[in-house]
């Protein structure tokens, strides 16, 4: 069977924030670039980001990138690489200002500058008190940003392949990445994109959990493709549970609500965060707030008939402020909780939100793997940015508003690196003869298999396993049994059966292919989590409790290191954290408190 081959300088997989940002670099540099997306670009999940993007513009009060750097390192529980973090926070102002120039409709201060609000974990003067650092467009920052970047790409004549699903990464015998195979969803046609640069910007995989703020499309396709191509995945045990998902529905309620003055309360109406984070209170880091909420619920102080949620209260705010700064939240409350937040508090629970780990990258956006003792050997032709990548700037816990910053800074730097490498010359390398074999075999198996596992049920089994065995609080024995269970689910996920055999827009097939990606992520998560025998950031386990020797259960002597999950043999290795920033003194290890 002959498969059409399309030749491009570069292919970008994913058209969310990171993909669109790198596309601008490549298109404006005049390189022949294809951007593939499962959905029309403005439907990517960046659109759902609400509260803002971090930059120390200092529009409302004094701020400094060094303070932002300190907060990010501390937020990461010291697992973030300090060179990458310094790189990111120092690029923040430039990247946010660029967006404004692209036309992004930021809210404004009275003197016409970009409006900034406080956000969890962002402080002035090295952790002293909350600072206004989150640049916002009401509570629709992601929407405003994604549309502005799509529009800039329209201006730059970027070539989009809309509603195409990338299937597999193509590598040659020397490990060079030569592009991807992809399927046009409308026709089922499989095509090879043969390139000199391949940028993954495929987002996260929050759908591995049962309760998630993430969109249906967040199925870790880039991680699945990387794993099948033998690329290890970094720090996959670290998942952020956002404190405020709407109870039951999972829909996100921005931390910006607390930035504007919202307060979390338990069944006794108590502002319980005062006990857990006396200084930052409701604006402590997300992992801290999510654990506090879960503790309140576990100890019987939850609200409602089943005492299974807490309340987010903004009834004390001026209704005009709510309508001006948080109009989308009011809509969400009405739609998904049946609550008007002007009059009544919102029911919320910690909900899976963000994947801190991912495809290991250097801060230039180049993908790196360990080879012959060098932990950071570049995989030629391969780049990654945004949630699918692990630079690592978020370490064990991401600060709110640093994700939109991540996708801007690293989307741009991955684009710049690709431009630089492409301009340095080098022709397309020869495609291996079997370049499309794996993808065609996967599709053929789905089209012919009888008596296999049901996709919907397999996905549910995975999501329940992840939720029950790797949630906000983790337990040594549950992680162990979780590993067994997820390996069982993996067997089913390798034997999926679909009834729909049509070539026309076959969503059953798409969902089955997505399930094959999800399971790679779920497995990497569970195995990495089971292996890390300490508590750090979002990964907190009962058998690594808070002790005088190991405050918060963190054990730097043994565990200050990145996990690398090798998908080829399910083995785990580690690599050092880069504690050396680019120009400033390292931010020294310290016990984390807010």
């Amino acid at each position: 069977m002959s498969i059409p081959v399309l030749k491009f300088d570069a292919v970008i997989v994913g058209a969310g924030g990171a993909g669109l940002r790198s596309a601008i670099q490549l298109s404006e540099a005049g390189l022949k670039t294809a951007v593939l997306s499962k959905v029309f670009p403005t439907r990517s999940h960046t659109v759902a980001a609400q509260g803002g993007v971090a930059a120390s513009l200092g529009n409302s009060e004094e701020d400094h990138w060094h303070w932002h750097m300190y907060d990010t390192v501390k937020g990461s529980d010291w697992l973030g690489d300090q060179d990458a973090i310094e790189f990111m926070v120092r690029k923040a102002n430039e990247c946010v200002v660029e967006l404004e120039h692209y036309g992004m409709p930021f809210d404004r201060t009275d003197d016409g500058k970009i409006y900034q609000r406080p956000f969890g974990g962002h402080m002035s003067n090295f952790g002293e008190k909350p600072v206004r650092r989150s640049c916002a467009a009401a509570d629709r920052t992601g929407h405003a940003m994604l549309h502005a970047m799509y529009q800039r790409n329209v201006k730059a004549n970027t070539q989009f392949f809309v509603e195409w699903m990338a299937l597999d990464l193509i590598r040659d015998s020397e490990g060079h990445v030569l592009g991807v195979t992809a399927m046009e969803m409308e026709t089922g046609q499989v095509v090879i994109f043969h390139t000199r640069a391949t940028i993954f910007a495929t987002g996260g995989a929050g759908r591995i959990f049962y309760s998630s703020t993430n969109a249906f499309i967040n199925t870790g396709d880039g991680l699945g493709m990387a794993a099948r191509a033998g690329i290890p995945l970094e720090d996959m045990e670290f998942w952020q549970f956002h404190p405020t998902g709407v109870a039951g529905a999972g829909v996100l309620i921005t931390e910006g609500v607390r930035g504007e003055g919202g307060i979390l309360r338990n069944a006794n109406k108590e502002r319980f965060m005062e006990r857990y984070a006396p200084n930052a209170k409701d604006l402590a880091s997300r992992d801290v707030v999510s654990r506090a909420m879960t503790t309140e619920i576990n100890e019987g102080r939850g609200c409602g008939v089943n005492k299974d949620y807490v309340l987010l209260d903004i009834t004390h705010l001026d209704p005009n402020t709510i309508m001006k700064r948080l109009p989308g939240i009011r809509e969400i409350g009405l739609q998904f909780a049946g609550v008007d937040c002007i009059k009544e508090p919102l029911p919320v629970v910690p909900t899976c939100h963000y994947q801190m780990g991912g495809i290991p990258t250097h801060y230039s956006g180049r993908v790196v793997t360990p080879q012959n003792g060098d932990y950071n050997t570049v995989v030629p032709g391969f780049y990654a940015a945004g949630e699918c990548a692990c630079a690592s700037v978020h370490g064990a816990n991401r600060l709110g508003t640093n994700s939109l910053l991540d996708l801007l800074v690293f989307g741009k730097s991955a684009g710049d690196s690709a431009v630089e490498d492409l301009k340095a010359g080098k022709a397309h390398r020869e495609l291996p003869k079997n370049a499309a074999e794996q993808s065609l075999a996967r599709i053929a198996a789905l089209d012919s298999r009888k008596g296999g596992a049901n996709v919907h049920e397999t996905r549910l089994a995975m999501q329940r396993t992840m939720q029950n065995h790797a949630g906000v609080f983790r337990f040594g024995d549950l992680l162990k049994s979780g590993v067994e269970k997820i390996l069982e689910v993996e067997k089913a996920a390798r034997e999926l059966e679909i009834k729909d055999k049509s070539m026309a827009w076959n969503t059953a097939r798409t969902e089955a292919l997505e399930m094959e990606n999800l399971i790679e992520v779920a497995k990497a998560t569970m195995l990495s989590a089971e292996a890390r025998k300490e508590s750090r950031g979002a990964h907190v386990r009962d058998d690594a409790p808070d002790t005088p020797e190991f405050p918060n259960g963190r054990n730097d002597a043994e565990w200050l290191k990145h996990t690398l999950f090798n998908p080829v043999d399910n083995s785990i290795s580690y690599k050092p954290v880069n504690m050396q920033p680019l120009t400033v003194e390292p931010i020294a290890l310290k016990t984390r408190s807010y």
Partner: protein
Amino acid sequence: MSKRTVQFSIYRYDPDKDDAPYMQDISVELEPTDRKLLDALTKLKAKDDTLSYRRSCREGVCGSDAMNINGKNGLACLTDIDELKQPIVLRPLPGLPVIRDLIVDMTQFFKQYHSIKPYLINNDPAPERERLQSPEDREELNGLYECILCACCSTSCPSFWWNPDKFVGPAGLLAAYRFIADTRDQATNERLDNLEDPYRLFRCHTIMNCVDVCPKGLNPTKAIGKIKDMMVRRAV
């Protein structure tokens, strides 16, 4: 809400095997936690994986799951299932070619959006910091920039049905006014020239279906009226 069974009549068409579209009668049992139409569709798809529709964010911000629900365009994820008369009749968005089941070909819709140059035009050298804009000037963009391109409006508009290749349609015109209204944009005249044509703008006969169906509560008719005003003022 309790457990209940809900009746549907759904437009089905698979070009690979069907000679013609047909309506499928089907029911599904819902859990108390299933509030929205999209929850029901997810349950239906678990029963029959051939049912095809677009969906992503499930919270009304991505614009994927627009469809015609009991005769009116809307987003499945924002539609309360218990407020719908049964059987719930689901059809693809009207006026665009159907690819399969509830999935339409949106090429024409996006072509019109792209035709208005949907990006900020400002030819001054970029300053080092943000361009200043007063809160009042910024407020002019409210009700314009929130469009999610779901196409509920344009595909409910008779003028768009008759001339989808010539009339920009409510979504595209709302976007056009979003840039005209932006104090940072310098291409107002060029944008008005681009719309000065018997079809592109003036096919809007203020039927206002667009306002009626917009799931974000936006008002394209008002934006179109403002463009028409500017056009007239420019002429005199």
